[in-house]
């Protein structure tokens, strides 16, 4: 009977369990869960604050998942060391777990830059875990002034999440625009206008010079009083476990398409890894849930002796604020096709007869068709791209392709 150990208990871990069980119904599975919760969906924490979901509904899998999967979970434990030759994992409570196959699904941690006076800020939060959200919830009421450092996905979702609970939210970012990792200035400005309509204040191209208790003195000289500070500058993959035993690590853990690291028997999946972005051909940390799910499952299958690959990773995001959705995918390289009006922007990037990436703001209909064109690297010459670019539609495929897609099991 094989022994499987999974470090981490997020989406990658849950999918890893399912991957293992799709091959091996008997082996023992042990999950090391630092958080004291069953696997839940971290992106939901902002929705929780927004009252769009409740903790009971935030479980990533239905109740009884671990029992059904016959997986043991060690809550509140953390893997601290791997002995690759003995094939054991050491836990922070000193326990040693032997494994035949190990999956590192340890995710990432908030990155907190050094800022003068930060230690003296009375109420500061990161925004990553359910516990983060629960503690933030305690600190916020309608009179609370909130300063969020970081206008990226996390910072803004946090802002949206608490927007109904407080009147004063200020978001600052070193970059000159919001969502700088996925949007250019024009697109960002459209989103920004929309957020501003909902009461957010932005300080962009600016950063905290120092904190004076609960006042931030910005580089620009602006002074921001706040009651609660949220630090959402970014996250860093947790790579130490692998790195210290000589596993190949770049920004994230390096894995092959079977999700195996450079060390035999050790797999990795999710936000702690780096994968090749199919759309750009470069290695990237693609810390998005679908990636974690695919990777986790593939890792699980391979750990159990099956044969699965995941080589279609691309960056993609669907993020909505107050009903306006921005969808992005791939890389913004090559020729750009653009359609825009005051409510929406569509940009498609094409190169070498392929769709490379897109930005869709306020025009999300059937966006998955574009995404799949990027993932499948569909030659543009094989579709009616004139039609496709105006409308994401399978009607732009050849009849033969459509017949295959709609006339058969897929």
């Amino acid at each position, binding site marked *: 009977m094989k022994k499987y150990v999974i470090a981490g208990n997020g989406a990658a871990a849950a999918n890893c369990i399912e991957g293992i069980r799709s091959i091996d119904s008997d082996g023992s599975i042990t999950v090391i869960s630092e958080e004291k919760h069953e696997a839940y969906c971290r992106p*939901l924490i902002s929705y929780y604050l927004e009252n769009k979901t409740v903790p009971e*509904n935030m479980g990533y899998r239905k109740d009884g998942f671990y029992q059904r999967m016959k997986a043991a979970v060690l809550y509140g434990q953390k893997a601290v060391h791997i002995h690759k030759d003995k094939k054991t994992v050491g836990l922070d409570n000193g326990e040693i777990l032997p494994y035949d196959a190990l999956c590192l699904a340890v995710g990432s941690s908030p990155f907190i830059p050094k800022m003068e006076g930060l230690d003296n800020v009375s109420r500061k939060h990161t925004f990553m875990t359910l516990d983060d959200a629960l503690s933030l919830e305690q600190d916020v009421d309608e009179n609370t002034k909130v300063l969020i450092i970081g206008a990226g996905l996390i910072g803004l979702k946090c802002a949206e999440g608490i927007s109904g609970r407080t009147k004063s939210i200020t978001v600052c970012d070193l970059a000159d625009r919001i969502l700088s990792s996925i949007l250019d200035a024009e697109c960002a400005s459209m989103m920004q206008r929309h957020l501003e309509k909902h009461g957010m204040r932005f300080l962009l191209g600016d950063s905290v010079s120092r904190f004076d208790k609960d006042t931030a003195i910005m580089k620009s000289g602006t002074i921001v009083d706040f009651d609660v500070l949220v630090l959402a500058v970014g996250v860093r993959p947790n790579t130490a476990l692998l790195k210290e035993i000589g596993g190949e690590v770049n920004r994230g853990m390096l894995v092959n398409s079977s999700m195996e690291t450079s060390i035999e028997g050790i797999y990795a999946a999710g936000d702690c890894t780096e994968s090749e972005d199919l759309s750009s051909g470069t290695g990237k940390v693609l810390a998005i849930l679908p990636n974690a799910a695919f990777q986790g499952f593939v890792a699980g299958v391979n750990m159990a002796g099956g044969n699965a690959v995941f080589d279609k990773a691309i960056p993609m995001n669907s993020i909505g604020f107050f009903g306006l959705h921005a969808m992005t995918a791939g890389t913004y390289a090559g020729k750009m096709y653009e359609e825009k009006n005051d409510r929406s922007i569509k940009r498609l990037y094409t190169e070498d007869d392929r769709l490379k990436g897109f930005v869709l703001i306020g025009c999300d209909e059937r966006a998955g068709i574009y995404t799949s064109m990027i993932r499948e690297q569909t030659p543009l010459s094989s579709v009616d791209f004139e039609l496709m670019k105006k409308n994401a539609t399978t009607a732009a495929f050849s009849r033969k392709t459509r017949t295959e897609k709609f006339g058969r099991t*897929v």
Partner: protein
Amino acid sequence: MKRVYVDEQWCLGCHLCEYNCAFANSGLPDMVLALKGKPIYPRIHIEGHDKITYAVSCRHCEDPICVKSCIAGAISKDGEVVKIDRSRCVSCYTCILVCPYGALTPDENGVMQKCELCLENACGEPACVKGCPNRAIIYEERGEA
């Protein structure tokens, strides 16, 4: 497994499938009560271009990307049927972003919905198939691509 297949050769673009779908999933006993005077949010949609039309609904993929991508774990495979637990959906639209068929669409409240083959509504079999006047939508077992 029996799935819904479309044959664009016979699709008339009459859109009856959309109305039958919306009615079947309305939970109401009469189509007029269910649909009169309001926009419809069916789980099947006529797509097409020029003279081609065909109905698109969930393909119930063998390995559904929506299930893997759902950030709320709301979409799952129940046997062979891809289902959505709408109470868990937070309207992030990631499923829209990934579905290669455009088969998932929001309802009037932005909550995602998808074809679940009418297995659990009063129709009991896909209403779109039952009501298609030209057998352009077929519910049957077929092989893989």
